[in-house]
Protein backbone atom coordinates (compact mmCIF):
# COMPACT_ATOMS: atom_id res chain seq x y z
CA UNK A 1 0.00 0.00 0.00
CA UNK A 2 1.24 3.45 -0.93
CA UNK A 3 1.66 5.78 2.06
CA UNK A 4 1.86 9.52 1.72
CA UNK A 5 4.64 11.41 3.46
CA UNK A 6 2.46 12.54 6.37
CA UNK A 7 1.18 9.03 6.99
CA UNK A 8 4.71 7.63 6.80
CA UNK A 9 5.90 10.22 9.33
CA UNK A 10 2.97 9.46 11.62
CA UNK A 11 3.72 5.76 11.33
CA UNK A 12 7.38 6.36 12.17
CA UNK A 13 6.60 8.43 15.24
CA UNK A 14 4.19 5.79 16.50
CA UNK A 15 6.50 2.90 15.80
CA UNK A 16 7.07 2.02 19.51
CA UNK A 17 3.36 1.80 20.14
CA UNK A 18 2.85 -0.22 16.98
CA UNK A 19 5.56 -2.60 18.06
CA UNK A 20 3.86 -3.17 21.40
CA UNK A 21 0.56 -3.83 19.64
CA UNK A 22 2.16 -6.22 17.17
CA UNK A 23 3.98 -8.06 19.89
CA UNK A 24 0.67 -9.00 21.45
CA UNK A 25 -0.69 -10.76 18.36
CA UNK A 26 0.29 -14.28 17.33
CA UNK A 27 0.40 -13.82 13.54
CA UNK A 28 2.70 -10.79 13.59
CA UNK A 29 -0.13 -8.69 12.13
CA UNK A 30 -2.16 -6.08 13.94
CA UNK A 31 -5.31 -7.86 15.09
CA UNK A 32 -8.65 -6.69 13.70
CA UNK A 33 -10.76 -4.72 16.16
CA UNK A 34 -13.84 -6.56 17.36
CA UNK A 35 -17.24 -5.29 16.23
CA UNK A 36 -20.87 -6.22 16.74
CA UNK A 37 -23.37 -6.63 13.93
CA UNK A 38 -26.91 -5.60 14.84
CA UNK A 39 -29.41 -6.47 12.10
CA UNK A 40 -27.86 -5.20 8.90
CA UNK A 41 -25.60 -2.68 10.59
CA UNK A 42 -22.52 -2.16 12.78
CA UNK A 43 -23.84 0.70 14.95
CA UNK A 44 -20.66 1.46 16.93
CA UNK A 45 -17.62 3.09 15.29
CA UNK A 46 -14.36 1.13 15.11
CA UNK A 47 -12.29 4.32 15.77
CA UNK A 48 -12.57 8.13 15.43
CA UNK A 49 -13.17 9.60 11.98
CA UNK A 50 -12.59 12.46 9.53
CA UNK A 51 -14.87 12.83 6.46
CA UNK A 52 -12.33 14.83 4.46
CA UNK A 53 -9.78 12.07 4.76
CA UNK A 54 -12.61 9.69 3.83
CA UNK A 55 -13.13 11.39 0.50
CA UNK A 56 -9.42 11.15 -0.27
CA UNK A 57 -9.49 7.43 0.57
CA UNK A 58 -12.51 6.76 -1.66
CA UNK A 59 -10.97 8.55 -4.65
CA UNK A 60 -7.42 7.14 -4.28
CA UNK A 61 -6.86 4.52 -6.99
CA UNK A 62 -5.16 2.01 -4.74
CA UNK A 63 -8.25 1.72 -2.55
CA UNK A 64 -10.22 0.32 -5.52
CA UNK A 65 -13.64 1.98 -4.85
CA UNK A 66 -13.68 3.81 -8.19
CA UNK A 67 -12.91 0.62 -10.08
CA UNK A 68 -16.58 -0.28 -9.60
CA UNK A 69 -18.36 2.86 -8.38
CA UNK A 70 -18.89 6.31 -9.72
CA UNK A 71 -19.88 9.21 -7.49
CA UNK A 72 -19.83 12.98 -7.01
CA UNK A 73 -16.14 13.28 -7.95
CA UNK A 74 -16.07 15.65 -10.95
CA UNK A 75 -12.24 15.76 -10.84
CA UNK A 76 -11.92 11.99 -11.29
CA UNK A 77 -11.72 10.99 -14.94
CA UNK A 78 -12.06 7.22 -14.61
CA UNK A 79 -14.97 5.88 -12.59
CA UNK A 80 -16.50 2.44 -12.84
CA UNK A 81 -20.10 1.47 -13.51
CA UNK A 82 -20.31 -2.05 -12.07
CA UNK A 83 -22.30 -0.92 -9.05
CA UNK A 84 -24.55 1.80 -7.58
CA UNK A 85 -23.46 5.44 -7.88
CA UNK A 86 -22.24 6.65 -4.49
CA UNK A 87 -24.16 9.91 -4.77
CA UNK A 88 -26.92 9.91 -2.16
CA UNK A 89 -25.64 6.90 -0.20
CA UNK A 90 -25.79 8.90 3.03
CA UNK A 91 -29.51 9.44 2.48
CA UNK A 92 -30.15 5.78 1.68
CA UNK A 93 -28.22 4.18 4.53
CA UNK A 94 -27.51 4.87 8.17
CA UNK A 95 -23.96 5.19 9.44
CA UNK A 96 -24.14 1.67 10.90
CA UNK A 97 -25.46 0.18 7.66
CA UNK A 98 -22.65 1.84 5.70
CA UNK A 99 -20.11 0.48 8.18
CA UNK A 100 -21.25 -3.11 7.65
CA UNK A 101 -21.37 -2.64 3.85
CA UNK A 102 -17.72 -1.62 3.95
CA UNK A 103 -16.48 -4.04 6.61
CA UNK A 104 -18.07 -7.12 5.05
CA UNK A 105 -20.71 -6.66 2.33
CA UNK A 106 -20.71 -10.43 1.74
CA UNK A 107 -22.69 -10.88 4.96
CA UNK A 108 -25.66 -9.23 3.26
CA UNK A 109 -25.19 -10.81 -0.16
CA UNK A 110 -22.85 -13.78 -0.39
CA UNK A 111 -22.61 -13.37 -4.18
CA UNK A 112 -21.69 -9.69 -4.14
CA UNK A 113 -18.64 -8.54 -6.06
CA UNK A 114 -18.03 -5.79 -3.50
CA UNK A 115 -14.88 -6.81 -1.59
CA UNK A 116 -14.95 -7.04 2.22
CA UNK A 117 -12.68 -4.16 3.22
CA UNK A 118 -12.12 -5.23 6.81
CA UNK A 119 -11.74 -8.98 6.73
CA UNK A 120 -8.77 -11.32 6.48
CA UNK A 121 -10.25 -14.81 6.76
CA UNK A 122 -12.12 -16.92 4.23
CA UNK A 123 -9.96 -15.68 1.33
CA UNK A 124 -8.09 -17.83 -1.21
CA UNK A 125 -4.63 -17.33 -2.77
CA UNK A 126 -4.17 -13.76 -1.53
CA UNK A 127 -0.93 -12.31 -2.96
CA UNK A 128 1.95 -12.11 -0.46
CA UNK A 129 1.95 -8.31 -0.45
CA UNK A 130 -1.64 -8.28 0.83
CA UNK A 131 -1.86 -11.48 2.87
CA UNK A 132 -3.21 -11.21 6.41
CA UNK A 133 -4.07 -7.53 6.03
CA UNK A 134 -7.52 -5.99 5.59
CA UNK A 135 -7.87 -3.80 2.47
CA UNK A 136 -8.55 -0.76 4.65
CA UNK A 137 -7.57 -0.14 8.28
CA UNK A 138 -10.19 0.51 10.97
CA UNK A 139 -9.30 4.22 10.83
CA UNK A 140 -9.76 4.31 7.07
CA UNK A 141 -13.12 2.53 7.32
CA UNK A 142 -14.33 5.14 9.82
CA UNK A 143 -13.11 8.02 7.64
CA UNK A 144 -14.92 6.56 4.62
CA UNK A 145 -18.12 5.95 6.61
CA UNK A 146 -18.00 9.52 7.94
CA UNK A 147 -17.57 10.79 4.37
CA UNK A 148 -20.33 8.62 2.86
CA UNK A 149 -22.86 9.83 5.46
CA UNK A 150 -22.33 13.37 4.06
CA UNK A 151 -23.47 12.27 0.56
CA UNK A 152 -27.12 13.18 0.98
CA UNK A 153 -27.98 14.68 -2.41
CA UNK A 154 -29.65 12.07 -4.58
Amino acid at each position, binding site marked *: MIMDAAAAKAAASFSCVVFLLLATTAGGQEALRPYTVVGDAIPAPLTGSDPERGRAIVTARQNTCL*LCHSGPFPEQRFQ*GNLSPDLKGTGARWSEGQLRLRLVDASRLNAETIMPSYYKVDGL*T*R*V*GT*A*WRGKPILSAEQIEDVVAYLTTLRDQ
Partner: protein
Amino acid sequence: MTVGLKRLAPLAVLLAFAAIAAHAEIPLNERRAGTADLAPETKAMQDDDSANPGMLVVLDGEALWKAKAGAANQACADCHTDARASMKGVAARHPAFDARLGRPVNIEQRINMCRVERQQATPFAYESKELLALSAFVGNQSRGEPIAPPADERLTPFRNAGRDDYFRRQGQLNLSCAQCHDDNWGKRLAGSLIPQAHPTGYPLYRLEWQAVGSLQRRLRNCLVGMRAEAYDYGAPEYVALELYLMWRARGLTVEIPAVRP
Protein backbone atom coordinates in the same frame (compact mmCIF):
# COMPACT_ATOMS: atom_id res chain seq x y z
CA MET B 1 -48.92 -41.92 -15.80
CA THR B 2 -46.69 -44.40 -17.51
CA VAL B 3 -43.50 -42.45 -17.05
CA GLY B 4 -41.82 -44.03 -14.03
CA LEU B 5 -39.46 -42.23 -11.70
CA LYS B 6 -36.69 -44.49 -12.97
CA ARG B 7 -37.06 -43.06 -16.45
CA LEU B 8 -37.07 -39.52 -15.16
CA ALA B 9 -33.94 -39.94 -13.09
CA PRO B 10 -31.46 -39.55 -15.96
CA LEU B 11 -33.34 -36.46 -17.09
CA ALA B 12 -33.07 -34.99 -13.62
CA VAL B 13 -29.34 -35.63 -13.65
CA LEU B 14 -29.06 -34.02 -17.06
CA LEU B 15 -31.00 -30.97 -15.92
CA ALA B 16 -28.80 -30.65 -12.86
CA PHE B 17 -25.71 -30.66 -15.10
CA ALA B 18 -27.31 -28.20 -17.49
CA ALA B 19 -27.95 -25.89 -14.56
CA ILE B 20 -24.30 -26.04 -13.51
CA ALA B 21 -23.04 -25.60 -17.07
CA ALA B 22 -25.42 -22.68 -17.64
CA HIS B 23 -23.94 -20.81 -14.68
CA ALA B 24 -23.27 -17.38 -16.12
CA GLU B 25 -21.56 -18.71 -19.27
CA ILE B 26 -21.94 -16.43 -22.30
CA PRO B 27 -24.19 -17.99 -25.00
CA LEU B 28 -22.12 -18.99 -28.07
CA ASN B 29 -23.83 -16.51 -30.39
CA GLU B 30 -23.28 -13.59 -28.00
CA ARG B 31 -19.53 -13.94 -27.82
CA ARG B 32 -17.33 -11.14 -29.09
CA ALA B 33 -13.59 -10.63 -29.21
CA GLY B 34 -12.01 -7.60 -27.54
CA THR B 35 -11.52 -6.23 -31.06
CA ALA B 36 -15.26 -5.49 -31.29
CA ASP B 37 -14.92 -2.84 -28.58
CA LEU B 38 -11.72 -1.13 -29.71
CA ALA B 39 -11.69 2.61 -30.24
CA PRO B 40 -11.69 3.33 -34.02
CA GLU B 41 -8.01 4.49 -33.97
CA THR B 42 -6.91 1.33 -32.15
CA LYS B 43 -8.94 -0.87 -34.49
CA ALA B 44 -7.37 0.87 -37.49
CA MET B 45 -3.93 0.22 -35.98
CA GLN B 46 -4.70 -3.49 -35.59
CA ASP B 47 -6.08 -3.80 -39.12
CA ASP B 48 -3.20 -2.08 -40.90
CA ASP B 49 -0.04 -4.22 -40.96
CA SER B 50 2.12 -1.16 -41.59
CA ALA B 51 0.72 0.55 -38.44
CA ASN B 52 0.36 -2.48 -36.15
CA PRO B 53 3.44 -2.51 -33.88
CA GLY B 54 2.93 -6.25 -33.38
CA MET B 55 3.90 -6.82 -37.02
CA LEU B 56 7.46 -5.65 -36.30
CA VAL B 57 7.69 -8.45 -33.76
CA VAL B 58 6.26 -10.90 -36.30
CA LEU B 59 9.05 -9.84 -38.69
CA ASP B 60 11.65 -10.45 -35.97
CA GLY B 61 10.07 -13.88 -35.55
CA GLU B 62 10.37 -14.60 -39.25
CA ALA B 63 14.09 -13.84 -39.09
CA LEU B 64 14.49 -16.20 -36.13
CA TRP B 65 12.46 -18.85 -37.94
CA LYS B 66 15.03 -18.82 -40.74
CA ALA B 67 18.15 -18.53 -38.54
CA LYS B 68 20.21 -21.62 -37.81
CA ALA B 69 20.65 -22.16 -34.08
CA GLY B 70 21.94 -24.55 -31.44
CA ALA B 71 24.37 -27.45 -31.54
CA ALA B 72 22.28 -29.02 -34.33
CA ASN B 73 22.80 -25.86 -36.41
CA GLN B 74 19.28 -26.10 -37.74
CA ALA B 75 16.67 -23.44 -38.38
CA CYS B 76 12.96 -23.94 -37.70
CA ALA B 77 12.54 -23.55 -41.46
CA ASP B 78 14.92 -26.49 -42.10
CA CYS B 79 12.37 -28.89 -40.61
CA HIS B 80 9.08 -27.05 -41.15
CA THR B 81 9.90 -25.34 -44.48
CA ASP B 82 7.31 -22.73 -45.43
CA ALA B 83 5.56 -21.53 -42.27
CA ARG B 84 2.61 -20.22 -44.27
CA ALA B 85 1.65 -23.82 -44.96
CA SER B 86 3.16 -25.77 -42.07
CA MET B 87 2.16 -23.39 -39.25
CA LYS B 88 -1.30 -22.48 -40.50
CA GLY B 89 -3.86 -23.38 -37.80
CA VAL B 90 -1.24 -24.45 -35.25
CA ALA B 91 -1.86 -21.59 -32.79
CA ALA B 92 -5.61 -22.07 -33.26
CA ARG B 93 -5.38 -25.58 -31.78
CA HIS B 94 -2.98 -24.96 -28.89
CA PRO B 95 -2.64 -25.72 -26.01
CA ALA B 96 -2.45 -29.33 -27.22
CA PHE B 97 -1.74 -32.57 -25.39
CA ASP B 98 1.85 -33.79 -25.42
CA ALA B 99 1.84 -37.55 -24.97
CA ARG B 100 5.42 -37.79 -23.77
CA LEU B 101 5.00 -35.14 -21.07
CA GLY B 102 1.50 -36.39 -20.28
CA ARG B 103 0.13 -32.84 -20.14
CA PRO B 104 -0.94 -29.99 -22.38
CA VAL B 105 1.62 -27.53 -23.74
CA ASN B 106 0.95 -24.05 -25.11
CA ILE B 107 2.52 -22.58 -28.23
CA GLU B 108 5.47 -21.02 -26.37
CA GLN B 109 6.28 -24.33 -24.69
CA ARG B 110 5.95 -26.16 -28.04
CA ILE B 111 8.44 -23.73 -29.61
CA ASN B 112 10.86 -24.24 -26.73
CA MET B 113 10.53 -28.03 -27.03
CA CYS B 114 11.69 -27.84 -30.65
CA ARG B 115 14.45 -25.48 -29.61
CA VAL B 116 15.81 -27.81 -26.95
CA GLU B 117 15.23 -31.18 -28.60
CA ARG B 118 15.69 -30.47 -32.31
CA GLN B 119 17.99 -27.47 -32.36
CA GLN B 120 19.84 -28.49 -29.19
CA ALA B 121 19.81 -24.93 -27.96
CA THR B 122 18.89 -23.35 -24.63
CA PRO B 123 15.17 -22.58 -24.24
CA PHE B 124 14.04 -18.97 -24.47
CA ALA B 125 12.74 -17.35 -21.30
CA TYR B 126 9.04 -16.52 -21.05
CA GLU B 127 8.34 -12.98 -22.31
CA SER B 128 11.83 -12.79 -23.87
CA LYS B 129 11.99 -10.84 -27.12
CA GLU B 130 12.83 -14.05 -28.99
CA LEU B 131 10.01 -16.22 -27.65
CA LEU B 132 7.45 -13.43 -28.19
CA ALA B 133 8.76 -12.95 -31.72
CA LEU B 134 8.61 -16.64 -32.65
CA SER B 135 5.18 -17.18 -31.09
CA ALA B 136 3.86 -14.03 -32.80
CA PHE B 137 5.27 -15.26 -36.13
CA VAL B 138 3.84 -18.77 -35.70
CA GLY B 139 0.54 -17.35 -34.41
CA ASN B 140 0.29 -14.93 -37.33
CA GLN B 141 0.13 -17.92 -39.71
CA SER B 142 -3.29 -18.75 -38.18
CA ARG B 143 -4.69 -15.27 -38.65
CA GLY B 144 -8.24 -15.59 -40.01
CA GLU B 145 -8.59 -19.23 -38.91
CA PRO B 146 -11.27 -20.21 -36.39
CA ILE B 147 -10.08 -21.13 -32.88
CA ALA B 148 -10.26 -24.93 -32.91
CA PRO B 149 -9.49 -26.62 -29.59
CA PRO B 150 -8.65 -30.28 -30.25
CA ALA B 151 -11.33 -32.85 -29.38
CA ASP B 152 -8.81 -34.80 -27.32
CA GLU B 153 -10.22 -36.45 -24.22
CA ARG B 154 -6.84 -36.36 -22.52
CA LEU B 155 -7.21 -32.58 -22.32
CA THR B 156 -10.50 -32.72 -20.44
CA PRO B 157 -9.21 -32.90 -16.85
CA PHE B 158 -6.80 -30.04 -17.52
CA ARG B 159 -9.49 -27.92 -19.16
CA ASN B 160 -11.81 -28.61 -16.22
CA ALA B 161 -9.08 -27.51 -13.80
CA GLY B 162 -8.77 -24.27 -15.77
CA ARG B 163 -12.52 -23.83 -15.66
CA ASP B 164 -12.57 -24.34 -11.88
CA ASP B 165 -9.86 -21.71 -11.51
CA TYR B 166 -11.85 -19.35 -13.73
CA PHE B 167 -14.90 -19.60 -11.50
CA ARG B 168 -13.00 -19.56 -8.19
CA ARG B 169 -13.03 -16.39 -6.13
CA GLN B 170 -9.52 -15.43 -5.13
CA GLY B 171 -7.19 -12.70 -3.96
CA GLN B 172 -7.72 -9.95 -1.42
CA LEU B 173 -10.58 -8.54 -3.54
CA ASN B 174 -12.21 -12.00 -3.53
CA LEU B 175 -13.25 -11.92 -7.20
CA SER B 176 -13.43 -14.64 -9.83
CA CYS B 177 -12.55 -14.25 -13.50
CA ALA B 178 -16.19 -15.08 -14.27
CA GLN B 179 -17.54 -12.24 -12.13
CA CYS B 180 -15.86 -9.75 -14.42
CA HIS B 181 -15.72 -11.51 -17.77
CA ASP B 182 -19.04 -13.44 -17.79
CA ASP B 183 -21.22 -11.36 -15.47
CA ASN B 184 -19.97 -7.82 -16.13
CA TRP B 185 -18.41 -7.68 -19.59
CA GLY B 186 -19.25 -4.49 -21.42
CA LYS B 187 -19.20 -2.46 -18.20
CA ARG B 188 -16.43 -0.12 -17.11
CA LEU B 189 -13.89 -1.04 -14.49
CA ALA B 190 -12.71 2.51 -13.77
CA GLY B 191 -11.56 3.57 -17.26
CA SER B 192 -11.33 0.10 -18.85
CA LEU B 193 -14.07 -1.65 -20.73
CA ILE B 194 -14.32 -5.22 -19.40
CA PRO B 195 -13.93 -7.59 -22.36
CA GLN B 196 -15.27 -11.15 -22.55
CA ALA B 197 -11.67 -12.39 -22.24
CA HIS B 198 -11.37 -14.33 -25.50
CA PRO B 199 -7.68 -14.87 -26.25
CA THR B 200 -7.98 -14.33 -30.00
CA GLY B 201 -4.92 -12.18 -30.51
CA TYR B 202 -1.98 -13.22 -28.29
CA PRO B 203 0.82 -12.36 -28.36
CA LEU B 204 -0.52 -8.85 -28.89
CA TYR B 205 0.56 -5.23 -28.66
CA ARG B 206 -0.88 -3.45 -25.66
CA LEU B 207 -0.75 0.35 -25.62
CA GLU B 208 -0.51 0.33 -21.83
CA TRP B 209 2.53 -1.98 -21.93
CA GLN B 210 4.04 -0.15 -24.91
CA ALA B 211 5.07 -3.65 -25.91
CA VAL B 212 4.01 -7.03 -27.19
CA GLY B 213 3.10 -9.52 -24.45
CA SER B 214 1.81 -13.06 -24.10
CA LEU B 215 -1.56 -14.29 -22.87
CA GLN B 216 0.10 -15.31 -19.61
CA ARG B 217 1.30 -11.75 -19.09
CA ARG B 218 -2.34 -10.65 -19.47
CA LEU B 219 -3.53 -13.30 -16.99
CA ARG B 220 -0.83 -12.20 -14.57
CA ASN B 221 -2.12 -8.60 -14.82
CA CYS B 222 -5.65 -9.72 -14.00
CA LEU B 223 -4.47 -11.86 -11.04
CA VAL B 224 -2.42 -8.99 -9.63
CA GLY B 225 -5.45 -6.72 -10.12
CA MET B 226 -7.46 -9.15 -7.99
CA ARG B 227 -4.56 -9.04 -5.48
CA ALA B 228 -4.12 -12.77 -5.90
CA GLU B 229 -0.83 -14.66 -6.04
CA ALA B 230 0.29 -14.78 -9.70
CA TYR B 231 1.66 -18.11 -10.99
CA ASP B 232 5.18 -18.50 -12.36
CA TYR B 233 5.28 -18.06 -16.14
CA GLY B 234 4.73 -21.43 -17.81
CA ALA B 235 3.03 -22.91 -14.72
CA PRO B 236 0.49 -25.68 -15.37
CA GLU B 237 -2.23 -23.48 -13.86
CA TYR B 238 -1.76 -20.88 -16.61
CA VAL B 239 -1.80 -23.56 -19.32
CA ALA B 240 -5.03 -24.95 -17.82
CA LEU B 241 -6.57 -21.46 -17.87
CA GLU B 242 -5.42 -21.00 -21.48
CA LEU B 243 -7.08 -24.30 -22.40
CA TYR B 244 -10.38 -23.25 -20.86
CA LEU B 245 -10.23 -19.76 -22.39
CA MET B 246 -9.53 -21.19 -25.86
CA TRP B 247 -12.44 -23.60 -25.49
CA ARG B 248 -14.69 -20.72 -24.43
CA ALA B 249 -13.52 -18.84 -27.54
CA ARG B 250 -13.95 -21.80 -29.94
CA GLY B 251 -14.95 -20.70 -33.41
CA LEU B 252 -13.89 -17.07 -32.94
CA THR B 253 -11.29 -15.83 -35.41
CA VAL B 254 -7.56 -15.75 -34.67
CA GLU B 255 -6.22 -12.19 -35.06
CA ILE B 256 -2.56 -12.44 -33.99
CA PRO B 257 -1.04 -9.93 -33.41
CA ALA B 258 -4.01 -7.97 -32.02
CA VAL B 259 -3.81 -4.49 -30.49
CA ARG B 260 -5.41 -3.66 -27.14
CA PRO B 261 -5.66 -0.42 -25.09
